[in-house]
Every structure is written in structure tokens, then in C-alpha cells.
């Protein structure tokens, strides 16, 4: 049935800059903010914006992501007409079919899916951003200015602008030039990787792009420049509010810490714009008789007997008596045993830090300092030491240094 607006969520990327955290799952399935996975943010934004038809394009290690999304029920996206659809690459008659070659090719391969709903507008989203946004306002802007494409932009500092795709606009915020990571930026409007296209226009450009053997089949590299060159009306939509790309270990750690300061980031407690998640069945968490918890998030099924400061604890985490956790992220099922210390670290799902072990160190002035990461299921042995900036993918034996 015809829909005015369909969202396509690009969730196929490996997220290689998250290293060990994405060795078993796609980036959008990485746990975030105590209760969520990254993909909960764009999915919740969709339903909060009145978009009830969402295609999720998957390719890299999709099993966990697929089972997490399931019928879409936690996001109210289990619909008899529309709802959430998982869209992997598929075989075709004649030719063999291919993996998604780029972001634009992923949408190109699903032209058939979009044609089923015959939308006026398509919203293209990424699965690696943390933000709350009412897309319906952006679509209204797109309609009002009669654009072929609207790109959501964030005002950043000129210094930061060198790290983003930058939109150069005229007095009416019409985009006349797009520069990827410019050394000398002319504007501070950074692309957030959120696009609204008039579907009939995008459809044509996708088909033309596919016919070009030299194309990288990418929105930023090909589709947007092609549309600009052809003189299409491209509009910048200025977004104000919290937005963070969590594609690196540092930014993922930063964004988690931001959730501890709702006034300056996202208010997860705001009932008018909830972020939904598939929640495991767990009893409330328990805070032990000698526990000390300060400026932290703690989630159901956890047991805290030790000290937790400035940290984010997901469900089913255990912090034993005498253990201390500071400025760290403990993903579901992580265990920190008696007397162990975890600082400035990300401890992935079901990892175990044995008694007396020490993981991570506070920032020092040196260049090679960084957040330490312990991959899922890994055990750090008794009294072992894990240095700052380490990326631990395999068990560390008791007393050893890694």
C-alpha cells in the first residue's frame, strides 16, 4: 500500500573502527547507554516521527541484529501494513546478485522494496548515530522548499569542520557545494548523514549511478555530487540538539558518558520522546550493603557490591565487594570480581575481570593513552594488568600484563 514516507536504515557496515566490539556483531547492534543498542535511536526516532515503514539494510554479521529487531514489536513497528523489514542483499535470476557495494547501491538493490510502498519521500538513515530527531519536521521542510534532496546539518566549530562532510550554502540554505573533510572549510555546516529524497528523483539517480562503472555507488561520493552538478534543488536542514557519531572507541565511550548528563545531551527520561529497546527479562538491580554508586547508570539484573563511579552498567552486570569501576562501560553480563579495578575501559558482554586484576588507567599526558577495551567473553585472569589503550581479544592469564 502507498506510504507518503519510508525510512531506509543503512545497517550493513562493519564498524571496523570499533575493532573487537564489532568482531561478532554489526555496529548498529553494539550496546549503548545502559539499556539500548545503537539502532534503537534511529528506530525510535522513526516511530516518534510517525514513520511506520522502515527498511533495515543488513550485510555484515546480521544474526544478532536480525534477532534483536525481530518483528519490530518493541518499537511498535510490527504492522500488518508496513512495519520494519530486514533487507539483506539477495540473489537474482540471470546474474548472481552481489553484496551491497556502497550506500547508494544498497538502496538501488532495494528499489523493488521501495516501489511496493511507492513513497513520495525516502528518509535515508545511518545505524551509528546517537540523537533524538523528529524526521517529520525535516520532511515538512523538504516539502516546503520543494527540494529534490534535503540534508540534515549540524553547526560545528571550524576546527571540527575538517573532520566532516561540509555543506556550503547560500542565504536560503540551498546547498551549492559539498566538500568531504575540507582542509580549509568554507562553512561550519556538517552533514549528519541523514537525507530526505523525493523518491522519484532519487530512483532516477540511483539507476544512472548504477550504470556508471567508475562509481563507488556511495551517497556522499556520487549521488549528492551528481544531483548538485545536475542543478537539483538541494536544501540544508539545520538540526539543533545532541548528535554523536559513535563509530570509534573514543566517541562511543564519550557518548556513553554523555548519557550521565541528560541536561547537555539526550534526556532518556523524557516520556514525550521515548527511546524504545528490546528489554531482556531481568529482576531489578541490587545495591549491596557496602556499595558506593555515584554519577552512574545501573540496569536491571545487576548486582553491585563494590564501588561504581562515573560509569554506565548494562543489565546483568556484577561488581563484587571491594571491586572498583570508574569512568567505564560494563556491557551486559560483564563481571568484575572482588578487589579488581576497572578504569577508563569498555568491558564487553560477558567478559570477566578476575579478582585483583587491573584494567585501564586514568588519562596521562602521553599520546598513546586511550580507553582500554576487553572484548566479549574474554577473561582477564587474577591480578593480571591491562594497560590503557589496549584492545584485548583473547584471555589474559593470571598475573600477566597485556
Amino acid at each position: 500500500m502507498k506510504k507518503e514516507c519510508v525510512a531506509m536504515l543503512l545497517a550493513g557496515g562493519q564498524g571496523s573502527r570499533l575493532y573487537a566490539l564489532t568482531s561478532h556483531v554489526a555496529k548498529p547492534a553494539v550496546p549503548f547507554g545502559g539499556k539500548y543498542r545503537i539502532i534503537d535511536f534511529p528506530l525510535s526516532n522513526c516511530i516518534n516521527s510517525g514513520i511506520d515503514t522502515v527498511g533495515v539494510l543488513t550485510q555484515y554479521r546480521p544474526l544478532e541484529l536480525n534477532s534483536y529487531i525481530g518483528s519490530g514489536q518493541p518499537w511498535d513497528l510490527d504492522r500488518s501494513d508496513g512495519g520494519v523489514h530486514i533487507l539483506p542483499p539477495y540473489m537474482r535470476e540471470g546474474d548472481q546478485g552481489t553484496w551491497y557495494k556502497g550506500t547508494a547501491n544498497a538502496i538501488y538493490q532495494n528499489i523493488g522494496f521501495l516501489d511496493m510502498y511507492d513513497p513520495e519521500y525516502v528518509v535515508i538513515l545511518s545505524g551509528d548515530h546517537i540523537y533524538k530527531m523528529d524526521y517529520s519536521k525535516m520532511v515538512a521542510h523538504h516539502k516546503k522548499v520543494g527540494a529534490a534532496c534535503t540534508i540534515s546539518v549540524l553547526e560545528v566549530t571550524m576546527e571540527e569542520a575538517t573532520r566532516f562532510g561540509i555543506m556550503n550554502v547560500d542565504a536560503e540554505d540551498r546547498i551549492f557545494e559539498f566538500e568531504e573533510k575540507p582542509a580549509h572549510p568554507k562553512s561550519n555546516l556538517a552533514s549528519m548523514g541523514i537525507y530526505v529524497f523525493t523518491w522519484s528523483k532519487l530512483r532516477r539517480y540511483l539507476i544512472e549511478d548504477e550504470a556508471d562503472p567508475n562509481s563507488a555507488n556511495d551517497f556522499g561520493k556520487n549521488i549528492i555530487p551528481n544531483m548538485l552538478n545536475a542543478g537539483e534543488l538541494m536544501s540544508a536542514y539545520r538540526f539543533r540538539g545532541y548528535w554523536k557519531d559513535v563509530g570509534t572507541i573514543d566517541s562511543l565511550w564519550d557518548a556513553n558518558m554523555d548519557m550521565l548528563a541528560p541536561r547537555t545531551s539526550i534526556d532518556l527520561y523524557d516520556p514525550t520522546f521515548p527511546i524504545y529497546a528490546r528489554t531482556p527479562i531481568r529482576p531489578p538491580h541490587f545495591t549491596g550493603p557496602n556499595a558506593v554508586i555515584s554519577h552512574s547508570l545501573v540496569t536491571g539484573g545487576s548486582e553491585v557490591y563494590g564501588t561504581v563511579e562515573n560509569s554506565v552498567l548494562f543489565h546483568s552486570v556484577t561488581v563484587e565487594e571491594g571491586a572498583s569501576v570508574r569512568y567505564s562501560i560494563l556491557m551486559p553480563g560483564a563481571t568484575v570480581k572482588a578487589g579488581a579495578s576497572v578504569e577508563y575501559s569498555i568491558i564487553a558482554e560477558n567478559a570477566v575481570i578476575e579478582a585483583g586484576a587491573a584494567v585501564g588507567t586514568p588519562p596521562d599526558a602521553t599520546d598513546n593513552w586511550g580507553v582500554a577495551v576487553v572484548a566479549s567473553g574474554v577473561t582477564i585472569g587474577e591480578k593480571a594488568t591491562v594497560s590503557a589503550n589496549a584492545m584485548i581479544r583473547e584471555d589474559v592469564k593470571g598475573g600477566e600484563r597485556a
Partner: protein
Amino acid sequence: MTNLHGIIFAYHSNDSLGELSKPRNTCSLPYGGRYRLIDFMLSNMVNAGVSDIGLIVHENYQSLLDHVGSGKDWDLSRKHGGLRILPPFSTAESAHHTYSGTLDALTGVSTYLSSIRQEHVVLAWGDMALNIPLSAVYQQHVERGSDVTMVCSDRHYGVPSSTQYLTTTSDGRVLDVLTYPSTAPEAAEFLSICILSKSLLLELIEDCATHDVHTFTRGALLPRLGELNIHTYTHTGYVARFDSVRDYFDRSMDLLDPDVRRQLFLPDSPIRTKDRSDPSTYYSPDSKVTNSLIADGCVIEGKVENSIIFRGVTVEKGAHVRNCVLMQGTVVKAGADLAYAIADKNVTVETGHCLLGNAAFPIAIGKDSTV
């Protein structure tokens, strides 16, 4: 799929629970930070593979219906079977007065019972908290070839004057049923959970209805102890039963004991409840929380000790909460001081107020009230 059908009695409002029972049926009493009592028996049945459950309600069941909804949080929203709410059939005499006993209640829904597609039925109340392996009870029932299996506990949990007790032979055959004695006898406490065949159940209902017998254990089973093969199954885990505000308070505080939590919240047989999509609970730098069970979605900025805190509770900076049960949505404002209090849903305790109960007489604050 198991050949067992679930019937849960949820028509009872226990007046002895005072303020706590006013807005609701006892089965929808909030317990343990995020549950309603009904969650325990619903989950026990679902965990035993029971796919069809009838919930017998009568009055005051609005909050229960809000809670269970279509049954989807228990995986009971099904094309065939699943959860069925059974209010009294409106033209029946039973619609005008509350059920006078479980057999009366069963008679009220006898058309539903005759349409049950499973061979056996488990009858249980939805007003206690326990995690019982009903599949093991069912297995014993079938293997022993019992006519009726009655579940009892190895310890005493209930108030004698509202509890039934079973005396048995050494191999577990029921000899006598003692109903509501003044003091606890030397006998096993009956947990009001029975398994029997659908055909025997229908036979008993028919026979009792024609003899104006309204109670199941006393009226239907007791006179047949000789002719039927009735055995007990002994449950060894923790059971919480509620007969007074004090009971409610004490059973809530039991949850601060890790051993009790281990018996109620088993990873392989989880207690399911309605999902609310709460964020994690935030502890501010000023918070000080010890020995407490705290659900998701709370913001804790004050001091909390020895308490059970439900979902979405706010404890402001400078507030002090000790030995309390704060239900969903309670707000304790700055400088307020609460001890031995039970705050029902959405209670607001204003700045500077002081509410001090004691262990023997905890204070219950009614739903939606402001102090």
C-alpha cells in the same frame, strides 16, 4: 507443547491489605520492584510450556486487565489459545455477587472449561509470589498416575487462619485437609495449586453444582479423599503470601536477602512482566544507596537504605528513604524523610515532610496521593 491447561483465580480482593487493596484486585498488587503478583503464576505456567491460560476475574479487575493486556509480554498473545480473560457470564446468578468459593468460580466459567483442548488442568491462585517448576509437578502427576496432585510447601508461609494444610501418609497420599485452623498444625501448607484431568474437573463441577457445594478443596476434594488417588508435590523454594500490610512489608524486605532472590528469580525460569521501556536508573554524585533493590527508570539523588524501589521513582537530593517500599512513579522531594513506609503508585511526598512508621506498623500511603 505440554498437555496442560492453566486456570488462574484472580477474582479476590483481600480487604486485610488496607490501602494497598483499594485500587485493585490482590493479583495486581505490585511486588518486587517491577512485578504484579499475577506475573509469578503466569510466568510459572508459561515456563512449564503451558500455552493456554484462563484468568478468572470478577470485580475490580481494571488494573489487572491494563497489566496483562493481550498477554504478549508472556508470549500468550496467540492465534489459538493463549491468554483468555474470564469475567462472570453476565446472565448467570454469579454475576451479581462475588464468587463464594473456587468451585463457584469454576462453575461460573464451565462453558470455557468444557472447551479446553488439553487433557489436564492446573488450578492456581494469582496472588502469591513463588517460582515453582510446574512441569515437574505435572511430570509427577502423570508418572504416579494420580487423580489429583496438590502442591504444598515444606515450610510454613501463610497465616493459619486463612491457610489450608494437608496431612499425608509417608508416601505423600493426602489423608486430611485442615482449613483455616487457629494455630499452625503439624502439617504441610497447601499452596492452593492442583493438577487434575479436565474430565475429573468437569465431573466434580457438575456434581458439586447440583449439591450446592461452592468450595473446591473442602467441598469437592475432602469428601473424596478415600475414593480418589490424591497426592502431594512438595515445593522447596521461597513463597510470599500476603494477608496484611505488615505481611506485604515483610515479604518485600525478604527480597533484600540474596538467597530469597535466588529462589524467586531463576535465570532459566524468568518472571515476566509488562515491558515499560524505561531507561537505566541514574545515581547522582550526591546519592547514597545501600542494601536496596532498585528497578529501572529511577533517578536517585538522595539517600536510600534497605528499600524496594519500583520503576520510575524519583528520590531528590537531601531526601532520606529507609526501610521503605516505593511503588512506580513515587516522587520523594528534597528534604523529605521516610521510614517504614509503603508508597503506592504515583505518591508524591512533598519537601520537608516526615513519615515515620516502624517495623511492626509500616505506614501505607494510598495510590496517587500527595503528602
